[in-house]
Each structure stands twice: as C-alpha cells, then as structure tokens.
C-alpha cells in the first residue's frame, strides 16, 4: 500500500446494491435473532424470578431454591464428563496425529467423528439399554469395597442409572469435538521442533512432552472448555439416563441424584402450565448465561493463542 492509497470506489451498479444490501441484511438477521433469543427469554423469565410456591406449583419455596440444585447437577455432571473425556481425547488425538500410520490417520479421525453424528436420543437409549446394566455390577463392587470413599458411598443404585452413568454418556458425546480440536492443534506443531527433539535423541514420548504438548497447551484448554460447554447444554441423553431426584449430592453411585437444568426442562416442560412454564424458561435462561460465559472464555483463550502461535 502506498501512502497515497485513497481507496478507489468502484461504480455502484444496481446489482451491487441489491446484493450487498441483502448480505448486510442477512448478517444483521443474526444480530436480530440472538437479540430476540435473549429478549424473549428474559421477558418470559421475569415473572418466574419472584414467583412463590403458591403461584407456581413446581416450586417448593422460591425460584432460587429451585434452580440451585439443578445448576449444581448441571455443573457436576459436566465436570465429571470432562474429567473422563479429557485424558482420553488427548490420547486419541496423539494417537491419530503422532502414533497411527500416516495413511490410516484420516480414516481413524473420521471414525471418531462418527460418534459426533449419533443423535443424542440414541445415546440416551443406549445409555439405558446397554451401558447402565453393564456398569451396575461394577458400581455394586465399588460400593462394597470402596464405600469408605465419600464419592462411592452407598446404597448402590439397582438400575445403574446414576449421575456417573450420565457423565459417561456425556463424556462419549463430547469426545469427538475435543479430539478434533486437540488433533488440529497437535498437527500444527512446528515440524522443526519435533525433528530437533528427535535429533537430540529424544524418544517419541519425550518429543511429544517437549515439543507437542507445550505447543498445544492452549488448544487443550480451549478444547476442554468447549467440551464443557457442550456437556452443560446436553439434554436428552441425561434426561433419559439419569433417574433424578433434584438434590445436591456428590455421591456418584446411589439412586438419589441431582438433575440438570436441560434434562429437567425436557422432562417437565410437556406437562407444564401457567407460571411453571415461566419458571422452566427462567432456568433455561440461566443455562444460556452459563454456557455463554463458558464459551466466551474458550473463545478468549483461542484468540489469545493467536498472538503467540506459529513457529517462533
């Protein structure tokens, strides 16, 4: 660009005006939609925030007492899912990017992506029909032998439909997206760094520890935060798998489990009436705010990473 770079304006033809006009309109539609989502949710939520148990039969005392255990359950289930999914997804990403034969890598990546294509309601069916009966004996064993550990305290659930099972299903569901992000970042590691490490005599694992993992650290963090966002908002799998009672409890294996916001909405909404609907919408608004915060945090990490990425 020279200093005299006054931008030359092209002649505006009618076609240009129509086309750029409709493009701007479509772009603004996104702004409008999101604003509408926020406004309609807030408008419908406001009556619920100050409702009492006389006005809305779903409440026992007031709104905040109702939403607090649900919020706890949402975060607790998502955190458990993340705890299980993170090491596995890092392992899969490393396997695909650095261990598997080059020619197989893209096929293996596609197979992992297949998991993302399974609808959540099918995961729900699978969770109840296959996973819960399969893990129930393990739960019984854990309660019998490791019951002194607070998380494993009894009595064990007879169906296996506990929060741990729900978290396992959630972990399987967020695995593909986390793996995809980790894989992308690992593949971007400067080859010179890897080759330098190998040339100095490092084994493959030492090369990964010294070159790949430090380079991919922020990618791993953003992958886990995005996975957390997914897990927070996941509805049907939890609604079907979890037999919830709406308490605050850290115990993983009992039949008394906290519910999650999304699952609670899906289960209660079809029969809700009157102010109960507004209460459920208000819990949805809180879920929206939480996932918004989590996702914004992830984007912030990704954008911060842009400044120092690359081979430097």
């Amino acid at each position: 660009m020279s200093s005299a770079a006054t931008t030359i304006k092209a002649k505006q033809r009618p076609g240009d005006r129509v086309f750029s006009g409709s493009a701007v309109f479509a772009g603004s539609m996104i702004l409008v939609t999101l604003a509408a989502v926020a406004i309609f949710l807030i408008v419908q939520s406001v009556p619920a925030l100050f409702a009492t148990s006389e006005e809305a039969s779903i409440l026992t005392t007031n709104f905040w007492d109702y939403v607090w255990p649900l919020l706890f359950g949402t975060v607790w289930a998502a955190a458990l899912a993340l705890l299980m999914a993170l090491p596995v997804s890092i392992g899969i990403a490393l396997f695909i990017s650095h261990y598997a034969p080059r020619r197989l890598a893209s096929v293996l990546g596609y197979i992992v992506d297949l998991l993302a294509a399974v609808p959540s309601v099918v995961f729900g069916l699978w969770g109840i029909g296959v996973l819960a009966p399969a893990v129930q004996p393990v739960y019984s064993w854990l309660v019998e032998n490791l019951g002194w550990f607070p998380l494993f305290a009894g009595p064990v659930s007879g169906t296996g439909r506990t929060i741990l099972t729900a978290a396992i299903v959630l972990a399987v569901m967020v695995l593909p997206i986390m793996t995809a992000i980790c894989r992308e970042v690992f593949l971007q590691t400067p080859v010179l760094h890897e080759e330098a490490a190998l040339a100095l005599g490092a084994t493959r694992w030492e090369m990964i520890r010294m070159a790949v993992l430090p380079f991919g650290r922020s990618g791993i963090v953003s992958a886990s935060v995005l996975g957390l966002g997914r897990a927070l908002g996941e509805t049907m799998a939890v609604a079907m798998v979890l037999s919830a009672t709406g308490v605050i409890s850290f115990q993983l294996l009992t039949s008394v489990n906290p519910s999650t916001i999304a699952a609670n909405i899906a289960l209660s909404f079809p029969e809700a009436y009157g102010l109960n609907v507004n209460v459920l919408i208000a819990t949805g608004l809180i879920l929206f705010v939480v996932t918004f915060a989590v996702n914004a945090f992830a984007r912030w990490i990704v954008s911060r990473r842009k400044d120092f990425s690359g081979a430097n």
Partner: protein
Amino acid sequence: MTVTTPQEPRTATPIANSLTAGRLPASAPWVILGVAMAVSAALFAIVGFAAGAGFDWGGAIAVGGLLYIPSIWIFSRLVEGARRATDRLVTALVTAAFVLAMIPLISLAITVITLGASRFDVEFFTSSMRNVTGEGGGALHAIVGTLLMTGTAAIISIPIGLLASIYLVEYGRGRLAQGITFLVDVMTGIPSIVAGLFAYALFAIFFGPGVRLGIAGAIALAVLMIPVVVRSSEEMLRLVPNELREAAYALGVPKWLTILKVVLPTSIAGITTGIMLSIARVIGETAPLLIAAGFTQSMNYNLFEGRMSSLPVFVYTQYANQGNPPEAYLDRAWAGALTLILIVMALNLIARLIARFFAPKFGR
C-alpha cells in the same frame, strides 16, 4: 622417519549407556500382547468353567489389554532402560485410549442394528401411530414431520447463513463484521434446549401459552442451524484464491457478478458439504422439537396448525411413555433410532462424497 607407535587393536567391548543399550525386537510388543491375551483367556476360561458360565469375551480382552500395559513396561525396562520403557508405556496408553473410544461406537452400532431390525419393516414406514396401542403402528407421521420441519429450517437458514458468510468474507469490515463473527460464535454454543425455549416463547406471545406448532420447531432448528452454515460457508469462501477475484475485477466484472459467477461456483462443493453436515446435525435434535413442536400420534402436514411429531421425539416418546406390552414400544423406539442413524449417516456420506468429487481442481 617418524616412529609410529603400534596402535592397540580395537576391542568390541560394549559400552553401558542408553544409546547403545539393547533393544527389543520389532515383534516383541505383538508377542507380549499375544501372551497377555492368551493368559487372560486361559484365566477367564478356567473361572468361567468353574462357575459354569459362558466365556466372557469382553472381559478376557479387557484384562488381556490391562495385562499388556505393565508387562511391556517391565520387559522394556529390563532390556531397553527407563526412557524407552516410558515411551513404550505411553504408546500403549495412547493406543488404549483410542480402543476405549471405539468401544461405545461399536457397542452402539451393534445394539441399534440388532434391536432396531425387528421392527424395521414396511409397516413402520407406511403407518402412523393413530389409534395404535400395543403392537404395530409406525413412524410415518414422525418421518413426515422431521422432513417438513428440517426442510423448513433449511429453507430459512441456508439463504441467511450463506448471505451472512458472503457478507463476512466479501463485504464485512469494521465493527458490524466483528460483532457478527462474535455472535455467530455465541450462537454456536446455544444449548439446543434453549433454542427450543426461544421458539416457544416467541410463538407463545402471538398464540398464547401452550402453543405447539411445527413452524416453531422449524424456527428452533433454524436458530441451531444458521451458525453452522455461516461457519462452514465462511471457511470455504475464504479458501477461494484472491487471484480469481482480482482477475474478474481486472476484466471489469462488477463485484456482485464476481461473487455470483466466480467465488460461489469455485466453493460450491465445500459449501454444499457444510450445509449437508449442518442438516445432519439438526435432524437428530430432540429437545427443541419436544419443547416447540410437541408430539402427536397422527399425521400432520400443516406446519402452522397443531402439534407435529418428529423422528427423534418419536424415539423419545416411545421410550418414555411405554404402554402394554412395553416390548412393542421399545422395538419401535429402536427402529426409529436405526432410521435416524441411517439418515444421519447417509447425509454425512453424501456430504463427504460431494466434497471429494466436486471439489475444484487447483492443480495445473
């Protein structure tokens, strides 16, 4: 002249350092894996025989795998030293992570196919659930509803998403473009159930509380679909080389014609792939449709009147509201799940094929 001192003959004494330390032969991991599996299988055979139960394949393979990880470490540690042992251990663990992720996928595929096949028949695709209690009945009403609502969502979101991505790539400068990019990111993260609540809230204002309409479901799906379309189309448009645009401008082609005749045809394969994948993503959504469109047992072709079933919601309601006999309801749920998975897989496959065969050839 110069006296050369006779050199000492070289000896081949081994030097003890990690660089020349012994190595396991290339076949060693496989041999150890085989032995571990054999030991585990023998163990399970004995236990199973003693207990009178059958042979537990899953348990045997799992225990064999668990046996392999420490034994390769011990062997490598003895022969190759600590560093290589760690390397082998990590290799085993990383592979185990991949195998672990395959377990749910394979289990899911087997379950859905075996359980779904029993009701995957003609009646399932030709009848609705109207007046059906117990056995029989089908999911035609749900399939029609899914097609109508997903189709409407696609009609709404493809133009908006495509034009918005064109705006972002070709026109967008300054704050509006930044704002839209950020909000698209935000929209990607909207939980699906919140989209359903939004559509419900929107229509409840006009039609009163308790409203359930097919069009509301379509709006909810569109909210979920637009950001995916924008993201993928934007990526594809950015891949179009700038030289193509500049060549068109140099020939005096107006900007809108350049976009229409040069940029879009170059990237149409990628855009189509992205759109197919976004349809595949929303067609399996359950929660927003359960909230906004409800469910019904009868055919409903009208998006603007009455409740409308969809395939995922059909699966859910068949499971959740089991009647008598429950097996009939569960079979229908699994058959619905099989149909759903087949549709999603077909969409994914078509999308990949389009991407592969219609991608522009940039080679010379």
